[in-house]
């Protein structure tokens, strides 16, 4: 019936920006990235410094537009430097997850047989332990610090990704493209890296943005339970600290809470746009 309007392949970036969720998501993330980068310029010095009277409400004093917390620390500085830490934790933890998840998934899917069984049993094992409880245990055991938190989040979030990657690799593995490559005498590693993985990039990219979002949420939950890194300002830590004064000065916990919501929302929107843009069935102009 209606012919499809297959025009030239529009670059991925443009296709994302064309979608409303992609545009909004990218703008939000760009702002957060900017905040993280400009922290030194906008608010030089240590965000943990007690620079003013405590419990200054936002907007009451010009030099501290976002007010101060219970120890007189500038919330604006906290948010800026916090952006850096939260994004750092989110991205590095996700990198770890991608490393393990894609690795395990690809190997399981490609080699099948006993290796697949072994990897899948481990995936199942990790999936039956509640991820947050597992991360909690790791951080409490290894003493909370930036590295232990990032490691804990990264190590407990990979099973679902491994399953997705395995499914994709399984599908590709028997496709003609791979058979052709084998026929040309390409070694396993070459096939895996050059042929299969690039095609798995789509779904991995989509789940990557969701993973970063989840990592940031997990970090804030750990901080809420008192397992945040005390030497570093992070949004999760600020919300955890703000909890004590929630009834009287709710802005202390609200502002970093909103920042978390913004980033996670932005990442999810970007994830949706990516999924949409990369989905072969719905290639639109």
């Amino acid at each position, binding site marked *: *019936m*209606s012919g499809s309007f297959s025009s030239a392949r529009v670059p991925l970036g443009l296709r994302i920006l064309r979608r409303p969720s992609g545009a909004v998501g990218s703008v939000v993330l760009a702002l957060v990235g900017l905040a993280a980068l400009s922290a030194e310029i906008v608010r030089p010095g240590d965000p943990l410094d007690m620079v003013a009277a405590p419990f200054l409400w936002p907007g009451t004093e010009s030099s501290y537009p976002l007010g101060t917390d219970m120890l007189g620390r500038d919330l604006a500085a906290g948010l800026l430097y916090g952006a850096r830490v939260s994004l750092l934790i989110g991205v590095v933890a996700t990198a770890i997850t991608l490393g393990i998840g894609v690795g395990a998934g690809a190997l399981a899917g490609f080699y099948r047989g006993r290796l697949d069984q072994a990897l899948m049993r481990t995936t199942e094992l990790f999936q039956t332990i509640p991820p947050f409880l597992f991360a909690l245990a790791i951080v409490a055991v290894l003493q909370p610090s930036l590295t232990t938190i990032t490691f804990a989040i990264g190590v407990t979030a990979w099973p679902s990704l491994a399953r997705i990657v395995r499914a994709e690799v399984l599908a590709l593995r028997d496709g003609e493209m791979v058979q052709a490559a084998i026929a040309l005498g390409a070694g396993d590693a070459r096939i895996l890296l050059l042929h299969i993985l690039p095609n798995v990039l789509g779904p991995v990219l989509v789940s990557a943005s969701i993973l970063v979002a989840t990592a940031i949420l997990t970090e804030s939950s750990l901080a809420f339970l008192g397992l945040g890194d005390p030497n570093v300002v992070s949004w999760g830590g600020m919300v955890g600290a703000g909890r004590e004064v929630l009834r009287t000065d709710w802005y202390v916990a609200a502002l970093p809470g909103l920042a978390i919501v913004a980033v996670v929302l932005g990442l999810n929107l970007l994830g949706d746009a990516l999924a949409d843009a990369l989905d072969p069935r719905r290639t639109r102009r």
Partner: protein
Amino acid sequence: MDPVLDVDGLSVSFPGPRGTRLPAVEDLGFAVRPGETLAIVGESGCGKSATALALLGLLPANAAATARRLRIAGTELSSADPRSSPEIWRRQRGGRIAMIFQEPLTALNPVLTIGEQVAEAVRAHELVSWRTARGRALDLLRRVRLPSPERCLEAYPHQLSGGMRQRVVIAMALACRPAVLVADEPTTALDVTVQARVLDLIGEIQRETRAALVLITHDLGVVADRADRVLVMYAGRAVETRHARDLFAAPAHPYTRALLAARPRPGWTGPRPRLAEIPGRVPGLAERGAAGCRFAPRCASVLPDCHTLRPGPRPVAGGEAACHRVAETTEPEEPARAACA
């Protein structure tokens, strides 16, 4: 006996780039009497499926359908857009006019039993209990000659073969003895051996119920065997509507002639002729200018007027054809032999 399906000026359009509308079907008119079979034939993309769906109001949401006249089984429909009077259209569907789809593998709901899906068709239009409806369903399954119908009632679609599923679809279409049957390439997805038996079944049912049958197909062999009258479509327009015998004997429109010439001759013993092709390709939805005859760019006997003046339908033996050349010559082509198997 006046026609049970009477359509005039039927047009269907789809959204195009930057808010424009693209014509899939343009100003189509035809009528079918009870018991008669009209075959709508044309290359894929000529709008025959859109026409079929328009008759039942099953076009996708973004499609727009209009018609000067649309009378189905005695009901005069005010507009071709089902949303204008949803309840009337709903009562039509399955009740007075029913459809048989092309893809039996996906046409049935995988999680419901065959019995439920057929009985459902009965209960959609008749206030009967489930038990009665199941009884009717069993009869229908027998009617379409399904092996062991009792077990089929309880079976799920994935447990039946393609041919058996198509019979179930036919059973569902027959549920309320519709006056008009629309079959959209009912056998294309089946293998050849099953095709003939399914088409025989449809023909048998049609004779028994005196239903009018609109048979959508691109298979000229099927048309020759089964159709009383034929409507040839090209790029959304009717180019020729004739009695089947006259069409095969003396195709009036150059496109029809080209279509017939493009068929292999199984009985031919001489040197194997190179199959005749039609140069160029069917214009996409976006490339269909309003002026002139759509086939002009590919027509072997094109005239200057063909590019500018849209040819109206002109009377020809046993029907009409929309071509400027029709007025002058209707000399017959070499005699058409009986259609292939």
